[in-house]
Every structure is written in C-alpha cells, then in structure tokens.
C-alpha cells in the first residue's frame, strides 16, 4: 500500500519531465522552421532569446508547481494508505483472533466426542475378547483331553513292544555269551590237554634217559628200522641223473641217380 503513492509520485515526476522535454522540443522546432533575415537575425535572436528565457522560466515554474502538487498528492496518498493499513491490520487481527477461538472450541468438542467413542470401543473390545478367550479355553481343554487319551494308549503299546524286544535281545546276548564261554572252555581244555601231553613227554624224556640202557635204546632203533623195511619205506633212492635220450633215427635221403657221362 505504501508503494501506490510512491509509484504515483514517480509517474508524476516522469510526466513533468516529459512535459518539459516536449515543450523544449516544440520551442526548438518553432525556431528551426522560421527563416530568419540576416539583418533581423540579431534582433530576432535577442527577442527570441528573451522569449525563450521567459518560456523556460514559465515552464520551470509550471513544472515546479506540478512537482510540488505531485509531492503534496504523494504525501496525502502515503498518509492515507498508512492509515488504511493500520485499520486493516487491526481488523485482521481481530478476525484472526475470533477464528482462532472458534477453531479451538471446535477441536475441543471433537476431541471430547472422540474420546467418548474410543472408551466405548475399548469396552466393546474387552467384552468380545473375554468371550473368545472363554471359547478358546474350552476348545483347548477338549483337545488336550483327547491327546492324553491317545498318548496313554500309544505309551502302553510302546512299552509292551520295548519290553518284548529287550527280552529278545537279552536272550540273544545270553546265547552268544553262552556260546563264547563254551568255546573258550573248549579252547582252554585243549590247551590243558596239550600241556598235559607236553608234561608227559618231558617227564618221560627225563625218566627214560635214566631208566633205559643203551641196549634198550638200540633195540628200539632196530625195531623202527624193521618197521620201515616192512613198510617198504626204504626203497630205491630217486635218481638224480637223467637218462640219456635214445639216438634220433636217421633222416630219409633221396637215392641219387648215377649221372650219365657222355
């Protein structure tokens, strides 16, 4: 708003300047178009100059008047606009304040209503929740009961199977260990038998050495040799030399014809 009188002021100043410029140009044209006499030139020049000075003076005076009136106008406008601005500001402030209060009232009312709605909603939820909780509890109880019943029956069968399998395995193990014990016993008995024989041989070798005379020993040797002879053990020794092979038969030859001598 303060811009308006300012722009008007500028317009006025421009107008004055233009007016001055136009009047100067008119004066120039006027004097240009006139053909001055050489004799009258000097006097005309003086007259013209005088007139020019007078015009200029008038123009300046006019322009000064215009400028001063423009300034006055400008000041008036500025003051007026300032006053209007001030009024408008007060008015707007009041309107804003009013609007603010109205809005606040509205919001508060709405908030209270929303809160009431929300409380109602929560209580509704609570009741519904409680209902579904009760329903779930009942269902779970039923299911768990059924599960327990099934579990009991399967456990019974499982235990029965395990018992029988364990018994089988234990019997199998017993059988294996019995067999192992038996074979170990046999092995040990065999070892003991061998030990007994070895002991017997050792005892005999110690005793017979003392008891048997050379004669007795030699008799046994002769007996053994007779036995070997009887069994035909002492046959011809295997020959170490190879037999010479039979001579090869002579190759057949073609009978030669006697050559005729001419």
């Amino acid at each position: 708003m303060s811009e308006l009188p300012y722009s008007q002021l500028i317009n006025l100043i421009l107008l004055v300047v233009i007016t001055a410029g136009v009047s100067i140009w008119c004066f120039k044209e006027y004097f240009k178009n006139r053909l001055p006499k050489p004799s009258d030139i000097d006097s005309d020049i003086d007259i013209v100059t005088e007139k020019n000075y007078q015009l200029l003076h008038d123009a300046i005076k006019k322009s000064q008047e215009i400028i001063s009136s423009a300034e006055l106008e400008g000041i008036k406008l500025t003051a007026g606009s300032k006053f209007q601005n001030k009024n408008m500001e007060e008015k707007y402030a009041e309107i804003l304040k009013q609007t603010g209060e109205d809005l606040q009232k509205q919001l508060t009312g709405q908030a209270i209503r929303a809160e009431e709605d929300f409380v109602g909603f929560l209580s509704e939820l609570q009741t519904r929740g409680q209902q579904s909780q009760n329903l779930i509890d009942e269902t779970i109880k039923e299911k768990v009961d059924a599960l327990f019943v099934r579990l009991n029956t399967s456990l019974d069968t499982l235990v029965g199977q395990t018992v029988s399998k364990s018994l089988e395995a234990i019997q199998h193990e017993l059988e294996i260990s019995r067999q192992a014990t038996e074979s170990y016993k046999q092995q040990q008995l065999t070892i003991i038998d061998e030990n007994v024989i070895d002991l017997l041989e050792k005892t005999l070798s110690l005793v017979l050495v003392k008891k048997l005379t050379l004669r007795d020993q030699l008799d046994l040797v002769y007996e053994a040799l007779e036995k070997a002879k009887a069994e035909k053990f002492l046959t011809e020794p295997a020959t170490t030399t190879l037999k010479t092979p039979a001579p090869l038969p002579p190759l057949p030859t073609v009978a030669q014809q006697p050559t005729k001598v001419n």
Partner: protein
Amino acid sequence: MTNAELIDKLLIGTYTKTDAIRRIRSLHQFLENQLFASRISEFTASSSADVAWLSGLGADFMKEFTTENMYLKVEDLDTQIKKIQALIIYLPFEVPQGEVVRLGLRMRKDFGANFLLEFRFDPTLIAGCALVWNNIYKDYSVKKKINLNKEIILTSIREYLAEQNRV
C-alpha cells in the same frame, strides 16, 4: 680199477657219510704226501681207525693214483660219494662207534654194500628214532607214539583223576 670199484673199496669199513667224506680228505692228504712231498714224512691221520682204514686199502688201490691223475680222480670220487643218498637217522642219544659199525653192517646186509648212514641228535624224540629217506621224514619215536595215542592217554588220565577225586 673203475671208479665204482674204487668207491666200493673206499666204503669197506666206512658206514657213515661223514666218515666217508673225512676219509676221502685223509686219502687226499696221504696221496699228496706220498706223491709230491720232497721227502717221505710221517703221515698223521685224524684217528687210528682212519690210519687202519688207509693201510687196509692196499697197494693195488694206491697204484691207481699217479701224479697226473691224483687230483682229478680224488675229486671225482669225492663228488660220487657226496651224491650217494644216506639214510638220516635222528636219535635221542649219541651212538658209540661200535654200534655204528653194527648198524651199518645190518643195513648193508639188507640194502646193499654201499649203503651209508647219517646220524643226527634230537633229544625231543625221547626214545626210538626218526628216519629221512628220499626226502621223506618218518617218525618212529616214542614222542610220535604218544601223539598218536593222545586221546587214549588223556582218557586214562581223566579216569585216574576222577577216581582220585572219588577217593
């Protein structure tokens, strides 16, 4: 004399292969001494039996050996004697020489004049002997008999123990 006749002569009174090889060696030494030594020196054999055997060979036998053929002939005789298969007898005792002769004569009566024996000592046989002929080993010892009659012996022992327990 042929080689066979020489061997027959050599093996008279020699009943074991060890003796035969030893005696060939003595013969070799003796002949070397006789034929090549610069002077006749006293010949000492390993035993009086060997000396007796050498003298028993006779002049006819010694005539067969000359300076040219001695080495070859002796080597030949040695090879032939080593080829003869001897009956190996494993005994649990050491055989005295007299018994060796008697055994040797007995075997030669049944199996031929050049039959040779070889004695080895094996105390584990207890009594009796084991024979090896043609690379076959046969056990006629008491040890073998015990092994063959193992079961009977063990049964008797068990019966005896059972009786003892009852008592």
